[in-house]
């Protein structure tokens, strides 16, 4: 059992908000870059290049975003592990997050590279966007349930 009081990160009131800002920036990079690919599949945004080209161009930024949230997220979690672990919204967020990342680096990547378009492209984009939206809702509701 962890004790929130024993965590050195809880020693300063500034650590949590700074980590949160990092988390938001990483999140915007990760989801925003994937979102640009999904919007392209939906026919919105960067229409002068294919979804596969967009995904390839932005892949390092997606990975950077993922690295930032995987660094800041567990540190935020460590500030009060018992609360997060038992929080229904946090549990929902983690399920959505694992599904979204897995989907992105397996099916989503494969379909985008194969040049998916039309109805199948719309379906892939919608599943991807819905999973990521689930992560946001899960994250925000942690403080409200």
């Amino acid at each position: 059992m962890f004790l929130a009081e024993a965590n050195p990160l809880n020693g300063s009131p500034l650590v949590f908000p700074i980590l949160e800002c990092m988390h938001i920036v990483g999140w915007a990079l990760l989801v925003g870059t994937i979102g640009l690919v999904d919007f392209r599949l939906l026919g919105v945004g960067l229409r002068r290049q294919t979804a596969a080209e967009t995904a390839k161009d932005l892949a390092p930024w997606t990975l950077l975003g993922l690295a930032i949230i995987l660094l800041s997220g567990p540190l935020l979690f460590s500030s009060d592990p018992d609360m997060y672990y038992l929080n229904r919204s946090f549990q929902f967020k983690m399920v959505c997050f694992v599904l979204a990342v897995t989907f992105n680096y397996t099916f989503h990547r494969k379909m985008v590279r194969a040049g998916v378009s039309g109805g199948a492209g719309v379906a892939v984009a919608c599943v991807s966007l819905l999973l990521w939206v689930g992560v946001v809702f899960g994250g925000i509701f942690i403080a409200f349930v």
Partner: protein
Amino acid sequence: MSLLTCAQWLQSTGWATAIRGSWYVYPVILSLHMTAISLFGAMIVVTDLRLLGIVMRKRPVADVVDELRIPKRIGFVLVATCGALLASSKAEEYYYNPFFWTKMSLLALVAVHALVFRGSVYSRAAEFDQAARIPGKAKLAASLSLLLWFCIACAGRGIGYIEPPLDKLHASLAQPVSGPPAPIPWLERR
């Protein structure tokens, strides 16, 4: 009419009262605000990083800047609408919140940024593709834009850290009417 009176009036409107009165409407709008920020904020980041020559260097500047213009505007309207609903529901509380005023001031600077750089940078992306290199003014505009939006995001998060001055607020308006639903017994059993 003072600004505080305006805030109190805004908070007492039907929709603001309804948002405050439900335990879930505020977080739902906040989630939509955050979703729109991540999806459309990334368009701003990509546009500015392209102008700085950091991402999508093989793609013409015009392809990135021009194609994202309309989606960015739609995104801004979505984010601002959600933001206005959130702010109106707690207008009186936010009147005393320094981070809220920091964020509003930074948003005013975004308008100034647009007035200064829209004509001279963002509408001239096609010219940058003909030029040997992206001019310094465009890079300045992109850097300032990134800095402004980063500060706005941080200030926005900061709003939640300020305790509302309950002694100054109308007590009946400050607290939500209902709390979260009672836990479901069969889900709580372990």
